[in-house]
């Protein structure tokens, strides 16, 4: 192969650099996110798996239903618990610590939802 003395070492260096993140972290354990659940409730509006994957879909459905179709502002859980279909008044009523609940996974997955540029997170005084 023409120029193999240069190409092969360069390829090795290139592949090494590209996979840097993989081998640099070998052996290290990443701390999985551990959102703190509210102690006074043992059920959410939907099952845990759905909430984990699709809570944002649910929030959008609530929003469209309430804003556009004058839908109900409250809902009932499987066990008959009434809740507000609202991020601020519903979700954060139980999950009252944004840092220990929302941010835990959002930081881990490196997503930055911009809810709080308009909505208010619960303050310590308000609780």
């Amino acid at each position: 192969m023409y120029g193999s003395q240069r190409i092969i070492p360069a390829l090795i260096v290139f592949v090494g650099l590209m996979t840097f993140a993989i081998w640099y972290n070998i052996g290290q354990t990443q701390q999985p996110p551990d959102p703190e659940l509210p102690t006074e409730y043992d059920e959410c509006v939907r099952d845990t798996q759905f909430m984990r994957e699709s809570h944002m879909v649910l929030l959008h459905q609530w929003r469209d239903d309430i804003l556009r179709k004058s839908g109900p502002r409250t809902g009932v859980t499987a066990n008959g618990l009434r809740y507000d279909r609202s991020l601020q008044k519903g979700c954060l009523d139980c999950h009252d610590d944004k840092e220990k609940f929302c941010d835990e996974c959002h930081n881990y997955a490196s997503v930055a939802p911009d809810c709080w540029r308009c909505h208010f997170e619960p303050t310590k005084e308000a609780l």
Partner: protein
Amino acid sequence: MKKERRDFLKLAGVAAAAGMGGTSAVQSLLGGEVQAAGLKRLGAEKEHKEGLRLGLAIDVRKFASIPGLAERCVEVCHSIHNVPDFGNPKDEIKWLWQERFDRVFVKDTHDRQAPELQKLPVLTLCNHCDNPPCVRACPTKATFKKDDGVVAMDYHRCIGCRFCMAACPYGARSFNWRDPRGKDEQGQPFIDEVNTEYPTRTAGVVEKCNFCVERLAEDKLPACVEEAAPYGAMIFGNLNDHNSEISRVLRERYSIRRRAALGTHPSVFYLI
């Protein structure tokens, strides 16, 4: 056939004389024919007369006779909805505000009217039109007409294109050029005291009066109406209910709407 210059001029003269007799395009525009045809095409020549349609009647004279009432209405509206004050009329955000009579009712004023009437401050807000031009202009459906007649907004969907502002004939929409949660040069926050029950907006979205949908959902009156209703200065209710107070008042008293000729069919009425 070879045309002489003289023949051409004669022909042009005859054509011009014929043109003057017939109806010109300009005349039919002035006569409102085009406008009427446009409204018909949009299916908007008639208003919705069935079902719930929320409306508001504002008693202009009552407001003039009670000093400070209008200001209180504006204050309560802007404080519960976290409306920022950017301290600059160019950036002003307004949901409910006062404007001179002759500027609110541009087409209903003439120079022989009583000057004190023309100078009268009138409360203005989104007219929650039955045929809202802003809704038609919005490319993302961020603003929409609800079944109860309220023209509402979903700020999540607003991309800040400001087409709705251009479309609204009443100037009822304001654009957030700056972050409402920010501070001015002196470190003074744009929202004096935030109401954490209601969200703020961000820079880059349009906002307007929402007829207090969040209060209506709790069976409360809109905040301004709650302030003015004890004086009978504002009447809120279902326009399509023959027995509602607003229907009765509108039947009994003389009222006008802003720029009725545009065919937007506002739901806000002014009792003069």
